[in-house]
C-alpha cells in the first residue's frame, strides 16, 4: 500500500515534470528540444548527485547541511593540487576528490555516531569550518580558468554517446545507488534505522554506524561533485555553491523523502532535483524574474511537503479484517 503510494508519488512527480515542460513549451517551444533537455539534465547533474547522498542521510533521520561546503572545500583542494601538479591524471584527481569528500563526511558521521550530537548542529558546525578552511587554504583568492590544466577542465565536458561525462556520472550514480538501496544489507539498514531506530537496534543493526555510513556516502558524493563543479565552471573560491545545501534538501523533499526518516527512494530524489533544475533553467528563458524563480521553487517545496504529509498521515488503526485485506 505504502509502496503503491510511493510509486504513485514518483509517477505523480514525473507527471508534474511533464506538465511543467508542456507549459514551458507553449511559451518557448525550443526548450523541449532533446538537445536542450540534455543540457538541462547536465546542469542538474550536481544537484542529483548531492540529492542522492542527502536522501540517504535524511532516510536515517539525520540531515547534512555541510554538503555544499564540502563540495567547495574538496573543489578547492583538487584545484590547488591541479595547479601544483598539472600532470596528475584525472582519474587520480577524481579518486582524491571522492576520498577527501568521504573523509569530511566521516567527520560528520563520527560526531553524530560517537558523540551523539544532533546532526543539524554537527553539520551546521562543519559547514562553517569547511568554508573557513577554504579561506585559510586559498587565503581568500580565486583559482581562475587559466590556472587549471586543460585535461582537468575537459573531463566533465567530454562527450560519450552524445552526452557529457557529467551526465553519465549522474546516471551511473542513480543506478548504482538504486541497487545499493534495494539490494544490499547496508541499503536495508538505512531504511530500518530511519524507519524505527529502536526496532533496528533490537534486530542487531547499529543505528549510529549506519548513520556514519550515510554521512560518508553523502560526503563522497559531495567530494565527487566538488571536482565536477570546479572543472566545469573552471573556477574555485570560498563561496562556491553557497547556499546550495538548501536546494539539495529541497530536491529530496520534493522527491518524496520523508523528513522524519525511513521513507524515500533514489529515483524520487533524482526527480525532485530535476523538477528544481527545470524550473531554474526555464524561468529565465521565458522572461520571468529570478525573484519569481525563488518564489516558485519555494511554492513547489511547500506543495510537495503538504502532499507528503497527506500521504503519510496516520491512517488510524486497522482493526477490521476486511480493511486489512483490502490493502
Amino acid at each position, binding site marked *: 500500500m505504502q509502496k503503491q503510494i510511493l510509486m504513485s508519488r514518483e509517477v505523480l512527480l514525473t507527471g508534474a515534470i511533464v506538465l511543467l515542460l508542456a507549459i514551458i513549451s507553449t511559451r518557448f517551444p525550443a526548450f523541449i528540444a532533446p538537445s536542450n533537455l540534455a543540457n538541462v539534465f547536465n546542469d542538474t547533474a550536481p544537484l542529483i548527485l548531492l540529492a542522492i547522498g542527502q536522501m540517504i542521510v535524511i532516510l536515517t533521520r539525520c540531515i547534512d547541511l555541510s554538503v555544499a561546503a564540502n563540495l567547495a572545500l574538496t573543489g578547492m583542494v583538487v584545484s590547488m593540487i591541479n595547479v601544483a601538479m598539472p600532470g596528475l591524471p584525472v582519474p587520480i584527481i577524481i579518486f582524491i576528490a571522492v576520498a577527501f569528500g568521504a573523509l569530511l563526511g566521516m567527520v560528520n558521521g563520527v560526531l553524530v555516531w560517537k558523540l551523539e550530537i544532533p546532526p543539524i548542529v554537527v553539520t551546521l558546525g562543519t559547514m562553517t569550518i569547511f568554508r573557513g578552511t577554504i579561506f585559510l587554504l586559498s587565503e581568500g583568492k580565486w583559482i581562475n580558468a587559466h590556472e587549471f590544466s586543460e585535461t582537468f577542465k575537459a573531463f566533465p565536458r567530454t562527450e560519450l554517446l552524445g552526452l557529457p561525462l557529467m551526465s553519465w556520472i549522474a546516471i551511473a550514480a542513480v543506478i548504482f545507488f538504486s541497487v545499493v538501496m534495494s539490494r544490499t544489507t547496508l541499503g536495508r539498514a538505512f531504511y530500518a534505522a530511519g524507519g524505527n531506530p529502536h526496532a*533496528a537496534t*533490537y*534486530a542487531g543493526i547499529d543505528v549510529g554506524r549506519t548513520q556514519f555510513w550515510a554521512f560518508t556516502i553523502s560526503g563522497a558524493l559531495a567530494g565527487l561533485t566538488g571536482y565536477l563543479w570546479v572543472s566545469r565552471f573552471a573556477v574555485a573560491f570560498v563561496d562556491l555553491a553557497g547556499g546550495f545545501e538548501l536546494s539539495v534538501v529541497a530536491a529530496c523533499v520534493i522527491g518524496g523523502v520523508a523528513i522524519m526518516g525511513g521513507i524515500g527512494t533514489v529515483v524520487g530524489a533524482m526527480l525532485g532535483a530535476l523538477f528544481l533544475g527545470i524550473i531554474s533553467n526555464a524561468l529565465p528563458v521565458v522572461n520571468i524574474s529570478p525573484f519569481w524563480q525563488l518564489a516558485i521553487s519555494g511554492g513547489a517545496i511547500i506543495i510537495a511537503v503538504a502532499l507528503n504529509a497527506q500521504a503519510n498521515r496516520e491512517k488510524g488503526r486497522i482493526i477490521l479484517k*476486511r480493511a486489512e*485485506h483490502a490493502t
Partner: protein
Amino acid sequence: MLMETDQKSVLASTESEIPVLALNAVTKTFPGVTALSEVSLELFPGKVTALVGENGAGKSTVVKILTGIYQPNGGQIEIDGSPIRFPTAQDAGDAGVTAIHQETVLFDELSVAENVFLGHAPRGRFGLIDTSAMMERAREILESVGAHIDPRTKLKDLGIANKHLVAIARALSIDARVVIMDEPTAALSQKEIEELYDLVEELKGQGKAILFISHKFDEIFRIADSYTVFRDGALVGSGAIADVTEAELVKMMVGRDVSQIFPDRERKTGDEILAVDGYEHPTEFADISFVLRRGEILGFYGLVGAGRSEFMQSLFGITRPSAGDVTIDGERAIIRSPADAVGKGIVYVPEDRGRQGTITALPIFQNVTLPSLGRTSKNGFLKLAEEFQLAREYTERLDLRAASLDTDVGNLSGGNQQKVVIAKWLATHPKIIILDEPTKGIDIGSKAAVHEFMAELAAQGLAVIMVSSEIPEVLGMSDRVIVMREGRIAAELSGDDMTPETLVRHAAGI
C-alpha cells in the same frame, strides 16, 4: 474495609438515585463498522464502576464519547438526568468529566503546577498568570491526594506513579465530578498500585463518580462497587460487584467459559544452555547469576524498576555489563552488541512491541528477515528470493494472513503486527528467547494464545526467559522463578515455593 464499601454500594444503588453521568442507548458507527451499539452506562457519585471488556469491545470509544472526542450517532449523554452534548473536549471538561489516561498526557518540560493548571491557571492583574497563587493551590491539591511533590518540580523529573498523581491533581483542580481512569495501573508497581487504590478511596470519599477501566480482575474486585461488561460494542451485563464472581465476569467478557487460562504442559527440561555468572552494571544491577536449561520457562518477577529489563538488555548486548560471564552451550560467549547476541542464538522480544518491534514503513518480508539478513545475503548483497522464502515459512507457521508479504507492516492490525515480531525472531533460529512482558495490555483471548505459543516453544526445546509483572502469569507459566529486587536477585523459587505470597514477599523485601 471492603465489607463496608460493599454494603454502602448496595445501599447506594437503590432505584431512586440519579446517576451523575449516564449513557443512554448510545450508538457509535464508523464507516463500515459499529463500534458501539445502544450501550448504556451509569455512574453514581462516590462509587467506582468498573468497565470490563476485551480489547476492541468498545471501552476506548466510550471514553472518547464521554470526553467529547467522538460524537455519538444515536442515543444520548445525560448529566444529572438531563441530556447534554459534548461537541468538544472543552465542553466535557466544563461539565466536570475528566479522564486519566493509560499513558498520561502531560507536559514533561513544564512544572507540576503548570501541568495541574494548564488552561485554567489562576489569573492576577492584567490577566497575567498568578504564579504564587498557582503554586499555592497546586500544593494544596497535591497534598489532598497524598502527593508530597514540590509543585515547582519539572514533570520529567517525576516517576510514573507521581505523574499519575499529577494527572489526578489536575482532574481535581477543575472540580471534576466524574473521573475516568483508563487502565491506570498498567505501568505501576505493586506498591504504587496500592497507593492508587488509597487515592481512589479518597476520591470516592469526596463524592466523585469513577469509571475504572481495567484488564485485571483482582483490582476490579478490590476497588469497584459495580461493573459493566461490554462485548463487541454491546452491553452484555452490569450490576453490583458483590453479586458476581470472577468466572462469571470472564464468561460475560469472552462469551464462553475460560476454564484454564494457562496451558498444561509437560515440564521436562533438558541440558543447561545458558549460564550467567556475576553479571554487574555500575548503576543498574549487581551479582546476577543463574542457569537456564533447554525446554525451560524461567520467570523473572519483580516490581517495576527492579532492574529486570535492564539486565535483559545487557544480556542482549544493548548495554555493556561492567563484570560477569555468559556461557552458552558450554562455551564462553562475549556479547558486545545485539548482533552478537542474535548470532549466539539469543533473541529479545522487547516490552514495547509497537515502538521497538516493527518498522511500519517496511513490508512484512523485510521486517521478518531484518535480524536474519546475514543468512539471506552474500557479501552484503541481498538474495530476495531467499528472503521471501524465509519470510513465507515463518509467517505461515504463525498463520499470519495478509494480502501479500509486500504489504507494509503499518497496514496490518495490531495482532498481525505482533505475529510479524514473533516471526522475525523465530526466523533467526534462536536457542534462547527473552520475552519482556509478553502479554502486557492484551486481552484475555490473545493472552491465552501467547501462553500456548510459549509452551509450544519450550516443548520444541527452546529456553524461554519470561519477564512478567503479573503474578498469575509468572506462576502459571514458569518452571522456576527468579525474583529481583533493587537490581539484585532476591530469590530463586521452584516447585511448592512458588506462591503469590513468596513472590510478593521477596519482591518487596518484607
